[in-house]
């Protein structure tokens, strides 16, 4: 996974609540067995609407996405995070997220930053003057070139994962002793390979 330390970019704003993962990547693109190449299908149906936010010329090249509350709700499809990342987004800023999307994002190298409404309003006001932000994942700060600076809270473990681009599985496998001890004390209830029906 790519490291995620600092991003400076224009910000794309899709200020709608409850953007579900069916919108982010519709089902017809989940039939592929690859992990890459989903960016071209991002917001597939909404992209057909001429006034969809991502068509705005000032949002071109954005690596930061600002969205409404409960972003990424619905289906667990990690393809949604893959599509956002493949399209170029590394940072999402919103008032809240669905739990599964937040977890999928970390594994995809995307930081989901939660800000309270008041700070989001400040941020939007600053962006309306000049559309650019720097997000620093090591210091957990967002800075606007006109001087606005916001610090945000972020899960420490997720931060370390993102900043260093760490692989969860390799880390967990180092705890094999604990897993083996648990298994020795807890026999499986059944063997799915021999279920007679």
């Amino acid at each position, binding site marked *: 996974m790519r490291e995620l330390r600092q991003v400076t970019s224009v910000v794309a704003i899709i200020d709608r609540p409850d953007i579900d993962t069916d919108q982010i990547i519709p089902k017809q693109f989940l*039939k592929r067995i690859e992990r890459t190449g989903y960016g071209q299908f991002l917001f597939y149906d909404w992209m057909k609407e001429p006034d969809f936010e991502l068509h705005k010329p000032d949002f071109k090249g954005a690596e930061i996405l600002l969205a409404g509350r409960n972003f990424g709700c619905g289906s667990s499809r990690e393809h949604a995070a893959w599509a956002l990342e493949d399209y170029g987004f590394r940072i999402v800023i919103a008032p809240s997220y669905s*739990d599964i999307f937040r977890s999928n994002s970390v594994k995809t190298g995307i930081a989901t930053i939660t800000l309270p409404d008041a700070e989001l309003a400040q941020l939007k006001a600053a962006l309306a003057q000049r559309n650019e932000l720097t997000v620093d994942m090591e210091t957990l700060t967002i800075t606007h070139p006109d001087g606005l600076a916001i610090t945000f809270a972020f899960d420490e473990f997720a931060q370390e994962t993102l900043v260093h681009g760490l692989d969860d599985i390799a880390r967990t496998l180092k705890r094999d002793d604990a897993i083996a001890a*648990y298994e020795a004390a807890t026999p499986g209830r*059944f063997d799915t390979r021999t279920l007679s029906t």
Partner: protein
Amino acid sequence: MAGTTLFEKIWQAHVVDEKPGEPALIYIDLHLVHEVTSPQAFEGLRLAGRPVRRPDLTIATMDHNVPTERGPITDLIAKAQLDALRANCEEFGVPLNATGSGREGIVHVMGPELGITQPGMTIVCGDSHTSTHGAFGALAFGIGTSEVEHVMATQTLLQSRPKTMQIRFSGTLPFGVTAKDMVLAAIGKIGVDGGVGYAIEYAGEAIETLSMEGRMTICNMSIEAGARAGMVAPDATTFAYIEGRPGAPKGAAWDQAVARWSALKSDADATFDRIVDIDVTTLTPQVTWGTNPGMVVPVDGTVPDPADFADPTDREAAERALQYMGLEAGTPVTEITIDRVFIGSCTNARIEDLRAAATVVRGKHVASTVRAMVVPGSAKVKHQAEQEGLDKVFVDAGFEWREAGCSMCLGMNPDTLSPGERCASTSNRNFEGRQGSGGRTHLLSPTMAAAAAVAGRFVDVRELG
């Protein structure tokens, strides 16, 4: 010391390792796999040279992509994905209930049916409706593909402990009102993000008197309120459902299991981070009007006016939803006509759901303007329904009777809505385009869907007597 909740009991029993400032390492007792969210996980294992650690605690099925009409699959990309699952299962030694095996079905119908969904377990699947299995007093939740790979490789997950919420349904369910109406009303009340960060326990008289099918319907839709997990304490109803199924303990082991499982409930003095009370005695059949499951009204109500929403964000969302749905504020729900009916999905395609719907359509006929289909949740449900003659009831009434699968719940297979088509659906998501690009979905119970099929519009199932 204060008592502990059902959730806490299961969680504590599964902590493998815990370090301060880090998510806990949780053991997973059962991993369910399907074709859509697994290929990249298997590929990750292959690239890293890692095996599936516990194939004996893993089982796969084919559901999302499969056509529900007999005959060979014609969608070559879907076929490649199904073939990949078959090859991956063979390579990694994971048992597979493939199409045609007689054991296939929607993953959340298959688990309980096999008796491998049991109280006190941790169960995961690369699918957000894994919460369904919580109906058995299990901690069950959906995960993404990276987590699927993590479970395959380690049989564990790194999880932050969620907060706890109890939703108490008091009173006796009135005639014509179902588990689906209970959960839709709950989502309408707490909102589609009301459960974010929580594991929900459903309790109260109206839950205790529900069948396992009804409890599964409710737990299934926990995720539509944003909660990854929903659960119900196991009781005699639960044990009766599990007993004798292939994965259930047998003989003396059964008695010991029941004794253990009987202790799995929240203590009387346990505390929850949030408690929500819902009185079911005044509950009415529910129908969604918008583009998320929280946009819901009683069938005797009207399409809401966006101007009545205090929050500007909610107002804009309602305006957009009405536009997408092609609805006018103030329209009585019973005046909305429909083009399609879908009875199916992991929410409402179990035998009890089909029986209930069949009761409504028996001796009647689907309206000439409506195309209606029933898609059983699994091959076993289909078989059972055919034994009971339900297929004949549906076919005589003008329904299409299909093979098991997810079907038009998400329309990955050929079963989709066309743009502008309006569908009464027993599934769980009414998102824009969910059942087909431009399609308009209204969620409701199986009996309400059956009644709508006959009338060609929404009707209050209570008036049919």
